[in-house]
């Protein structure tokens, strides 16, 4: 892998980190330990710095929304959380990201196992060009989660049920997944991601390619899923962030400007840039 991690991370306390610390004190509904923690994360693509000292806690059983104008680095940050940037040529990451206290960039971490614990759903629905059954069964197969065919079938059915898709597809399990509608495909991708029982679910603008009805279904699904998973969602839609998330982080030009409870961010932002973005003055 053409990827370097610099240790130890620098210990300088930055403004962003301070904001984050405040946020922890200010607004939390369900108080729980942070499952996923990022400290002073810097990302470089070649010579260009894409993220600057980002520090944030992702709490479990909550939805954390990341908002900000295009190109602000929110997707880049999301992809750091399950090391998807590893495969990008010339990408370099410094800082510290831990999952339940374990450094996910440590040299002894198996990326395959890590991605089993941190699942991801993409902007564009990307079902594999195989049957619906095979799409869901792929993850459990490569992670060795199902010993027998019956276990696998059960896992596929429960995952589809959790994603609210089972009733719609139960008669066509062995037909190509590419024949589903866009919204169904996206819920299939979510079902696929939760079939391996991850702790964290990363969603990169999961509704930007969907119509309002399909978006509504995916949002309802996120509400249900948050009972069991921590969810991080990157979104362009402030309404969506306000509707589904409990905490919101605002990114601007590679900076995590502010992170707080969603209520505070939308009603009482501390930073003037956040206020401008939310009121639609730029972005």
């Amino acid at each position, binding site marked *: 892998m053409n990827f370097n991690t610099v240790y130890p991370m620098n210990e300088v306390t930055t403004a962003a980190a301070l904001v984050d610390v405040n946020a922890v004190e200010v607004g939390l509904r369900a108080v729980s330990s942070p499952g996923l923690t990022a400290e002073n994360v810097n990302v470089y693509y070649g010579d260009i710095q894409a993220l600057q000292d980002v520090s944030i806690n992702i709490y479990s059983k909550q939805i954390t929304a990341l908002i900000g104008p295009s190109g602000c680095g929110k997707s880049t940050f999301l992809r750091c959380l399950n090391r*998807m940037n590893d495969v990008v040529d010339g990408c370099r990451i410094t800082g510290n990201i831990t999952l339940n206290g374990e450094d996910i960039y440590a040299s002894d971490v198996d990326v*395959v196992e890590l991605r089993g614990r941190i699942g991801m759903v993409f902007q*564009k629905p990307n079902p594999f060009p195989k049957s619906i059954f095979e799409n869901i069964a*792929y*993850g459990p197969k490569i992670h060795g989660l199902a010993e027998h065919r019956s276990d696998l079938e059960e896992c596929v059915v429960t995952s589809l049920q959790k994603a609210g898709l089972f009733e719609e597809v139960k008669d066509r399990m062995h037909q190509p997944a590419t024949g589903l509608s866009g919204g169904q495909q996206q819920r299939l991708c979510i079902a*696929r991601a939760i079939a391996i029982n991850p702790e964290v679910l990363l969603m990169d603008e999961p509704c930007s390619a969907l119509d309002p009805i399909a978006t509504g279904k995916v949002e309802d699904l996120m509400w249900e899923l948050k009972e069991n998973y921590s969810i991080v969602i990157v979104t362009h839609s402030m309404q969506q962030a306000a509707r589904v998330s409990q905490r919101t982080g605002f990114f601007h030009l590679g900076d995590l400007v502010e992170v707080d409870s969603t209520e505070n961010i939308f009603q009482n932002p501390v930073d003037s840039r956040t206020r401008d973005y939310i009121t639609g003055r730029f972005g």
Partner: protein
Amino acid sequence: MIRNNKERLRKRARAEWRFRSYGILSLLFAGAALVFLVSTIVSSGHAAFFKTTIELEFPLGAERLNIETPYTRENLLAGNYYTAAKSSLYALFPEVTSRPEKRALSKMLSPGAELELRDYVINHPAEIGKTVTLEVPVSSDYDQLYKGHLPRTGTHTRLTEQEMGRFDQLVEEGYIHYRFNLGFLTGPDSRYPELAGIGGAIAGSFHALLVCFLLSFPLGIAAAVYLEEFSKDTRLTRMIEANINNLAAVPSVIFGLLGLAVILNVFGLPRGTPLVGGIVLALMTLPTIIISCRSSLRAISPGIRQGALAMGASPVQVVFQQVLPAAMPGTLTGTIIGLGQALGETAPLLMIGMVAFIANVPATPLDSSASLPVQIYLWAESAERGFVEKTAAAIIVIMTFLILMNLLAVIIRSRTQTKVE
């Protein structure tokens, strides 16, 4: 202003009409050329799928055939069927008594008549002592005469008035039959046009294509997957890429020379065999397969790779479980087209010696053999009138195989397309 506009619209409509008519004209021209080509070949080649036979009575006396007891295979093979076959023909013309006349008459029978009689006796030893009626082939000149390809008068006629008269008499009396010639499709080549078959060439081409496929398909896919999915973009890989593209344009005779110099002379593999032919054809087919496999890999949406990676698949798993299966239809289409090209290649096979006269059907890729395009080349060069229709018929056979292969490619492509949609 308005009139101006109308003028411009009319001009544009005329230009579009002109363009459409050029297109239709060129299509018509191409269609006419194709129809002309196919109809010429079919009209001159269809007769090769039929043979002219003569119905004769053969008294199978052991003494007459000069067979010794017991009737083992060796003893039966040693019999004198030549004389027996001829005398059966003489029996139809009791008026022919002089030696030169008899010799001229005996030329009506193909050497195949004697062989068919022998094979019949070997397969039915119980019939010895009885009299059987068999249909045996007539020689090429009479076959051509019956098919109407041989002029009855003029300088190009090859038979005398008397010979033609005797043959016409037999036709009138109903001894001459026109039968489907299965031996043409299954039998080996022969010096005698009426006996020559394309079965040996089909088997040789099949063995060569099998070797070609077994070598070039896995190698091509491995090379394409490595170059497209795993290699870093360095000067070396860029050079390899450029050279693969160049290889696709190298004249095939050069691959033949390479095979002659390296595979035959350095490695000492048996010359003129489908094994060597297949290796040379594999070298030619490799660039086609690599290029088609790489472009199908490139056409797979990056979302699938990302999705599989995010599910925790390793890069190798991503390629072999998701990307490559999705790219398979395109790769297979390219492979079949590459094999189709290989099937029609002549020059490299000439260079490695697959041009010899082989009078049996090869059983394995290690037996010397002909191949379809080389067989066409050999027959086209032969002087006998009877080989003209054989050449055209061989072209029909090779074109049928090519059309079938391309049809297979189309079917694979359309089936997977409907699956994805």
